[in-house]
């Protein structure tokens, strides 16, 4: 009891230091993502949703939403300002593609040159599926041609 009471001011100081450190860690973590003065939650969600569809030009595997590159911060600010000016998501994307080409869009638009990108995996899947279907059918025919044996032990015979 005596011990605890004597330790309490020190504990309190320790808690204060820990609190300051905790706050600092948060400040550092937030420094990468500049706070923007959103009007309301809906606007913030629209901004987050839009910037997640855009590619950072510096760290190209990051979205504009995640990246802490200075250029990404500048572009986030531009996107935000254009949202405030009442521009639609499509207008903002067009503004960015006019400068950085369709490379900035994580979802490239469906055009003559991009159909392979969109449907290539589906085609590969269909080709694989067709191959499996043909092989299985042929095997089934071969199995059907062989008279069914009556195995006493009931085990599958491959």
């Amino acid at each position: 009891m005596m011990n605890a009471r004597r330790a309490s001011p020190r504990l309190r100081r320790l808690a204060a230091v820990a609190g300051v450190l905790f706050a600092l860690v948060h400040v550092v973590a937030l420094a990468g993502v500049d706070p923007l003065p959103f009007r309301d939650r809906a606007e913030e969600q629209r901004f987050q949703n839009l910037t997640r569809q855009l590619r950072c030009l510096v760290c190209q595997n990051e979205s504009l939403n995640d990246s802490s590159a200075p250029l990404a911060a500048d572009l986030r600010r531009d996107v935000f300002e254009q949202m405030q000016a009442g521009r639609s998501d499509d207008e903002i994307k067009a503004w960015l593609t006019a400068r950085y080409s369709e490379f900035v869009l994580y979802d490239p638009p469906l055009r003559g040159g991009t159909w392979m990108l969109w449907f290539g995996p589906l085609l590969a899947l269909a080709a694989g599926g067709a191959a499996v279907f043909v092989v299985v059918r042929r095997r089934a025919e071969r199995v059907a041609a062989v008279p069914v044996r009556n195995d006493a032990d009931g085990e599958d015979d491959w």
Partner: protein
Amino acid sequence: MNARLIPFLGFLLLLALLGFGVWWSGTHDMRAVPSPLIGKPAPAFSLPLLGQPQATFGSRELAGKPYLLNVFASWCIACRDEHPILMREGKRLGVTLVGFNYKDEPADATRWLAQFGNPYDVVIADRPGDVAIDFGVTGAPETFLVDAQGIVRYKYISPITPEVIATELLPRIAALQKEAR
């Protein structure tokens, strides 16, 4: 043909595709963002001169003559590799060499140029980086060739090398000069 060969041929096809991908990414810069500005007018801009913030310089002053816009910054490590080449070759390119100081402290940029030399005919400073975004700049160094009509003809990302000058820049500049005549 033996039907058992078909899966093997499929495998060979995939292997060829993989080989093509490896070759392609080895011979192409996969990080280079294609510029949609090629063949289009360069954005209009007017920026303060480095060291003389009250004086501005921009597309209006540059109209009527081809120029090479070189994006650089004192914080840019690769710009140090490029810099001696610009010092050596800049004057014989035959176009105005515009230094575009990108998101830099003016004092740092001035010191950088004093230390390594100034290859540029004029140096403009884009501290906020807004004009750079209009140009579609993704970093430094980047270089744009703009013709006398203000049309962007060519963009090169990453440090300029003597090979790039010889094979990419000089032929294009010569073509521009032939057009002008």
